[in-house]
Every structure is written in structure tokens, then in C-alpha cells.
């Protein structure tokens, strides 16, 4: 579902958030550190900072629904991925370099729009818990006419 070009964009190191909801249909959401698109493009792994995993993990384990939004600050190209929780991935530490490389690129993109990295030094974006999601929908959220349209 996610082709190679889109996967490159999504893995390029973007600001990204994971949204869930609880049994009372109240939304929850956390900033996540990175995503990795699996080779067939139908599944992805999202890296949730351990410090806030308890905000969304119970929702994922309860009902499985997830949404991830990723946007590039320099041009506002934005994509939302809808997904279904498949499970926790063992040994997220093995992907540490990949995750931190994406995070480093995210900080650079902030710098490109004039936001220095110094204030974000205390953000706790690692270690992470990795969760695997099945991709159920892809939407463009780039601002402007057509925002919200499904990506084929």
C-alpha cells in the first residue's frame, strides 16, 4: 500500500504523532520518534517513546485503532496513515541507529524553519517501544484544496 517513494518520504525524519482513542471515544496522542515501513508496504513499525507509551498502548491493545500524521515543516507536505495494531515488536533497541537518525533529521527540519534544537534537548524521544501496525488507509493532509483526499 505504501510505495517506495512514499516510504522514503515517511522515513526521511519528520515530525510525527500517533493518535489513538480509548473506550469512551476520547482521543489520545503522543509524539513519536520514527517509523519504519516494512518492505511489502502494508505494515509499518512506529517507535513510541517509552516515557509516554502508557498514554496510547492501552488504547492500541484495547481496540487497535491508530492514526499517524507525518508532515515536512519546510513545505508542509503532510500524510496521515490509518492503521490497526498488530503487536509490540521485540527488541526495539536493535533499530536504535535508524530511529535516532530519523530524529536527527527531524531536528534539522525544525532548524530549517528557524526553530533551534537547543530547547528540544530535554525531550525524551529514546528509548522507545516499537509497535507494528497494519496500514488500513493513506490520506494526503497537505494544506489546501484537496486536503484529506485518499492516496491511491
Amino acid at each position, binding site marked *: 500500500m505504501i510505495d517506495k517513494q512514499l516510504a522514503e518520504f515517511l522515513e526521511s525524519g519528520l*515530525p510525527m*504523532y*500517533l*493518535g*489513538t*482513542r480509548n473506550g*469512551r*471515544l*476520547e*482521543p*489520545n*496522542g*503522543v*509524539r513519536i520518534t520514527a517509523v519504519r515501513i516494512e518492505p511489502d508496504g502494508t505494515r509499518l513499525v512506529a517507535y513510541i*517513546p517509552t*516515557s*509516554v507509551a502508557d*498514554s496510547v498502548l492501552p488504547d492500541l491493545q484495547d*481496540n487497535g*485503532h*491508530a*492514526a*499517524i*500524521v507525518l*508532515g515536512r*515543516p*519546510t*513545505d*508542509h*507536505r*503532510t500524510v*496521515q496513515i*490509518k492503521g490497526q495494531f498488530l503487536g509490540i515488536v521485540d527488541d526495539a533497541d536493535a533499530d536504535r541507529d535508524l530511529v535516532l537518525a530519523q530524529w536527527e533529521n527531524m531536528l534539522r527540519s525544525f532548524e530549517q*524553519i*528557524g*526553530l533551534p534544537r*537547543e*530547547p*528540544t*534537548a*530535554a*525531550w*525524551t*524521544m529514546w528509548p522507545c517501544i516499537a509497535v507494528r501496525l497494519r496500514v488500513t488507509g493513506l*490520506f494526503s*493532509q*497537505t*494544506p*489546501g*484544496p*484537496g*486536503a*484529506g483526499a485518499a492516496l491511491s
Partner: protein
Amino acid sequence: MSIALESLTSCFQGLIPALFCTCSSDGIPNVAMLSQVEYVDPTHVALSFQFFNKSRRNVAENPNALVRLIDPDTAQGWLLRLRYERSETTGPLFDRMALRIEAIASYSGLKGIFKLLAADIYEVISVEPAREEVGVPAIRQRAAAADPVFTMKALQDLSQRIHGADSLERLLDSILAGLEESFGFNHSMILVPSDIPGVLVTIATRGYPESGVGAEIRVGEGEGIIGMVAEARKPIRIAGLLREMLYATIVRERAQQAGLCAAHARIPLPGLAQPESQLGVPLLVRGELVGVLCIESETPYRFHEEDKATIELLGSYLAIAIQNMQLQEAAAAASEPEPIAAPQPKPASAAKQRDVVYYAADECILVDGEYLIRSLPAKILWKLLTSRAQGRAEFTNRELRLDKSLNLPEWKDNLESRLLLLRRRLDQKCPDIRIVPRARGRFALELGCEVQLRMQ
């Protein structure tokens, strides 16, 4: 709510995009980036409704929502749990939010396309700090300790400068110099209404490589915040212009792809090449627009929330000072009793010749093929040059006022502002044609070159 919403005012500047999480009635979460979150009162915020239709459908079905904000001073993230209450499409709150969006839109020729559809009002159920986006204490302390921009001392200094100015020219220069030296605003400009309805003209600038005096801005027709400030007669502050411009640019590209706007309408930014913060203030006296003050900075979020009320107050003070000076100069010039002698003009240097062409239909003057000025200042210059060719060298404001060919309004003609503008344009573009003040209401036209006059 344990954390007061008022304490998060820095977060509402839109410097870092906010996140908006909703959920449909069948339980599918949705996450979208937000253009604006606006403080309404201690228990309510308003979110801008522009494009995110899925979020809007969700809150219509299920009013629970979550917004995440980041404080640009401390990098602390905040979670606001919300409940949708209502939408407003008119009123002061809507106007305030729409004005900011329209100001950005106007830079990209997107007015009418990039616009606010509604201000959605939410009750704030709770405010919690985001645990992963933890603020840096050192940054927080530095931000807390930062001096406010508008201090009493700086205001006193500016006031003294204003009181010391004895002409409109000195007053305008004193204001801009005071803003730089007392407040640290290095880039500023003042525009006044021109004699063309709906057009503002730049009369004084400071801190730019080119003075820009004479540059015109059409009120409310898509030329950045200055035109918007003049149209709405309200201050506009933009905290992170680069990010907002990037946002407008992508909307523009999408609008072009959808055939909603033409490709050639983008209007370049005035002033700084890459301003990050802009503050435009209308200079109003009893509802009359005397001018617009625009301050720019290359620093994001240069003008904090607490500065806003002060700059509005300062704007009123400056407006009264400028209008008083205009009226005072006009009154002094009108009482000028002496008849004008016709001294022989000094012979101009033959070293250089200027070709001055007046285009009567357009009321516009070109010097050596380059645009100099138009409208009333152009008519005045043409009269001065043709009179000088007949032997006149000195003039009074009074005779200009009485000259029917200039067609000045009987009340508030702003002649002194027009003469100042003309003098500054000549200084900038052809300094060998000079308007030199002789006394209040009296001036000479001096030529350091031969002038060839042509009318077309």
C-alpha cells in the same frame, strides 16, 4: 484545570504547528496539524477551521478532542483535552482569527482562497504537560527573565524624542530612530494615506538597504500585513512568518493545481528579505487612519503577547503626534503672509542634464526614463520645475494650496506630507534636483543640473 490557560499564551502564536486529535463515532482516530489555536477565555479556546473536514465531521459526531501545543520559549509540550461547543462565522473572535490568516494569504495572492471558514469554540476540560516534550529549564528561566520589549524607560525616551521634533520630517525620523535605539527594532517603516483613495505611501523607513520612500501599498488588496492593518484598522502580529509563508505557499500550489488561482499573482514581501516577526499597527485618531507603522525582525516570535497592548497604545500616541504636526505645519504655512519675490535662480551646473517627462494622463514623472513619482507629488514637482524654468526659485506651501491646478482638498490636504515624500524621493533618485526648506511653509527648488522638461 490545574494549569491556567492564560499561562500558555506563548503557545498560541502558531510558531510550532499544533496537533489536533479527534475520533469518529465509529471509533476511528484522526490526527491533523492545525493552523491556529486561539485563547478565548480561561476555559475556552478556538481552533481555525480551514481545510480539515474529517476532523470537523468527527467533532460533530463526537465532541471529544485533544490538542497538543508547544511553548516556543521553553519547548514544553502541552495537552489540552477539549469538548466542542459551537462554531462562529462572524464576530470579534472570528474577525481576529480571520485577519491573521488573511494577512498571510495576502503575501501569496491567496486572499479569498486561503481563508478562515469558522472559528470552532471548544471548552477546555484539562491542561496537562506533555511528558515526552519536556521544556528545558535554562531556556525557561531565560525566557522568564527576558526584559519586556516595551519598558517605561523606552517609552519615556521615545516620548522625549517626539516632543523635541519641530517638523513632520523630524518627527517621523525621531519615531523610527526611537524605536531602534530605545526598543531595539532595527527595521521599521511608516506609511501614510496618499491622495489616491485606498493607497498608502511609504514616507519614512529605517534599517533597510533601500529607503523605499514612495513605495505604495493598496489597502486590503493583498499586499501583506500593512494593507490588511489599514483595512481592518487593527494591529496584526505574526510570530513565525517563514513557517506561515511556507504554509501559504503550499496552499497556493495546491490551489493552482485545482485551477483556483492564477500563477502570476504572487506579491513580493516588502522590507526585509526574510522577516520572521512582523507587527503592523494602525495609527488612528478618532477612527481616522493617519498611517500604519510596521516593525519587522529577523527573530521569530520577537513580539510577545504582553507587548501587544503597549504597541496599540503607542500607536494611538504616535498617530496623535503625527496628525498634530501635520495640522500645525499646515496652519503655519497658511499664515505665511509675505508675497513671493521672484529671485533669479542660480544658474545650474552644465555638467549634467536631466530629462524630466511628465505624463499628464497618468500624473506621473519619469526622470531619465526611470519612474520618480506619481499623483499629487508629481503634479507639484511639475509645477515647481515649470515655474523655475520661468525664473522662479522659491515657493510657499500657501501658494500651492491656492493653486487650482493642483486640486488639493480644502480640508486636511496633507500637503506637508506630500512635499516631504517628494523631497525624499528626489534625494533618493536624483539628488541634483533638490527641495530645500527655507522657513516654515517656504522652500526653494535648487538644481545642480540642467533640466529638460517635456510633457506627454
